[in-house]
């Protein structure tokens, strides 16, 4: 049975794709971005047990050397994830795709689709395929929110089940990307080209951090690659996300938030390139 570690389920979300959607956030990411807003989703729990005695609700226990989480007791105070020295979370529920599909079935009248996010959802490829299969049978849309590290071009089965990918293009510049994420960006950039050509790019996304990242360079690169498709009628969007220090690790927290003027200047580049949905958040 394909289980996946689910960090969080949001039953109703208007910020993870079109309309109202249910979103599954998986635990575990193969990138390690300085500006990650949910650093506690990056690694898997090492069972060090530091968080167990600190939990004020008694929702954590050690059993057979592993940290166990009791969702019913959790009050969501975040003490455990603040305490964790490994960018992990003990609040993980290992779910089967069938259990996840049961959640979708309950929410089905009120949503138009499901979005899988992270961590990195492509690391849970088999689970995602199974869940999307169920979602399709319910008439729901299916979107992935991905860091782009996965080679989508080699997985036609997944792509068939997935309506579109919301692809992070963090930096077009290879060195800047590596410095930010600890990973190269070739696969990400190949995915940008491949997904848009396959009609599977829901949107590209770039987080804007003034002073720290070559923002304009990235925006110009993405727009340059997508412009021919936009000109040919593609409705792939481009979302420009303001860096926000909330939840970010201390090492990156001191960076400034971009002002409206910068965001609008970048958005103007996308509009000029013919982007039909250039969104600033």
């Amino acid at each position, binding site marked *: 049975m394909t289980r996946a570690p689910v960090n969080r389920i949001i*039953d*109703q*979300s*208007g*910020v993870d794709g*079109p*309309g*109202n*959607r249910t979103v599954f956030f998986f635990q575990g990411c193969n990138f390690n971005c300085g500006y990650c807003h949910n650093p506690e989703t990056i690694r898997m729990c090492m069972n060090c047990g530091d968080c167990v005695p600190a939990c004020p609700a008694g929702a954590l226990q050690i059993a057979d050397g592993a940290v166990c989480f009791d969702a019913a007791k959790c009050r969501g105070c975040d003490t455990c994830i603040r305490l964790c020295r490994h960018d992990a979370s003990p609040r993980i529920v290992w779910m089967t795709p069938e259990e996840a599909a049961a959640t979708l079935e*309950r*929410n089905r*009248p*009120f*949503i*138009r689709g499901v979005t899988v996010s992270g961590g990195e959802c492509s690391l849970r490829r088999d689970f995602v395929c199974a869940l999307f299969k169920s979602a399709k049978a319910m008439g729901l849309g299916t979107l992935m929110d991905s860091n782009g590290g996965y080679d989508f071009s080699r997985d036609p089965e997944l792509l068939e089940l997935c309506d579109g990918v919301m692809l992070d293009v963090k930096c077009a510049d290879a060195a800047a990307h590596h410095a930010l994420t600890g990973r190269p960006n070739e696969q990400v950039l190949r995915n940008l080209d491949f997904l848009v050509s396959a009609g599977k790019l829901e949107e590209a996304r770039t987080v804007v951090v003034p002073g720290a990242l070559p923002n304009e360079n990235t925006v110009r690169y993405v727009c340059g690659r997508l412009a021919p498709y936009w000109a040919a009628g593609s409705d792939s969007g481009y979302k420009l996300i303001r860096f926000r220090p909330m939840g970010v690790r201390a090492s990156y927290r001191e960076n400034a938030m971009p002002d409206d003027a910068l965001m609008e200047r970048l958005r103007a580049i996308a509009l000029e390139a013919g982007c039909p949905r250039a969104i600033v*958040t």
Partner: protein
Amino acid sequence: MSLLSSVSEDAMRIVTDASLTHEQAMMNLSKLPGQCFYGFAPPPGFERMLTEGLISDLGEGYAPFCPRYLLPDYELFLKKGCRFLRIEPPTNLFEAIQALEMFYRHIPSITNFPVYLGRIDRLLQPFIRDEAEARYLIRHFLIFIDRTISDSYAHANIGPEATLAGEIILDCEYELQNAIPSVTLLYDPAATSDAFAAKCARNALACAKPSFANHAAYQNEYPVPYGIASCYNALPVGGGAYTLCRINLKAAAENAKDLDDLLERALPETVRAMCAFMDEKIRFLVEKSLFFRSSFLVQEGFLRRDLFTGMFGVVGLAECVNHLQALCGRPTERFGHSARADELGVAVMERLAELVNAHAAPYCAINGGHYSLHAQVGLDTDAGVSSGARIPIGDEIALYDHLRQAGRFHPFFHSGVGDIFPFEATCKKNPESLVDVIRGAFSVGMRYFSAYASDSDVIRITGYLVKRSDIEKLARGEAVRQDNVVWGLGEVRNSRILERKVRSL
């Protein structure tokens, strides 16, 4: 205190109240005589039930001279004009708007203002020739309504189909941020385009209008077309409601020893008295008072007596259930939070519907000869009694569970019911997500859905719209033009209206 000195005291309070406009003072004064003489005899036991709070006559008094809610046939009016008012059938948009403005001035109701303004998009659409001109005229039409009808029970309907007139109305309301009129989209996913529904949701989040009515569920309620009037009252167009009286289920439960005593004694007694009271009032209204015999609205066919019904209002189902649960030693298994509590709520509503439907109501043929159940929104003076069958403010549950729960109870209320949900301001970026939620809500049985954003100035109180800024003004003792603001302030103070659970999307 003698009746006379009580009335004198009320009159004195009204004429010296500097927070009332002239119009409000006049209307308050006009209600006093009807409180102290009887045009008809209330049935035995009624006065006691009134005093005990089991029943409220909602301030209609005992000598009504006009039905409570009127839904004139405005289409007919625009087609043939009005002899009595010497208004010719309009030939262009300017004339159509002016004709309606003149006509509205002469439509009475319990509020002394029209509570139904018609399906204004459909009324105006055939006259639109030039979009720019239409935008100019419709904008001023809406301003005229806000400034002359000082009461947000005035309710306009739009949809279900998208029209240019509908688009213009939405654009104007979005810009104007007026509390008046209320607007409802008659929403049917099969007839309303997704883009138009999304625009309506955008507006709801910006200015609390329109609300969404479940058109597919409502359109078969009467053998004639319906309209949404006043709060969210679904009534036959060309008719309306003679009267609305209400039972307080919380008081009824407190009056009973246990569930059985409630279902087999307290409810039947109260329903019997309330129906008898409504019967007498309607007979007086139809047979003795002036309206149906002399109003030009009736004589020229804009209203027909045979399209009226009576509304049997209900409040406090949640508190009724919670009281019964406490009696059974289950105080934590509250309405909305426990399957057993909700089952109990269904049992109470089923019994109530059975009792009301067993009563033969006079002059109510359009509703099958019976009174129609209505989820009354409450009064500003109510404390600790929730509107209709709503889950109490402060006790709300997760959104989808809440909608499903409401969907179980809405179908009981043929003449109107609704729930209200404030959403976080971020939802404005994705109004389609709100449409998804509303469509889902209707698919699980809900009949009426109101939304507003947590940062919006115009908000829905219980069944009407008020500007928050006006409530603040009135709280400082300043007069405000719109009469509902008084009730809004009372609801804010007594019913924690501003503390509704804000939903995120």
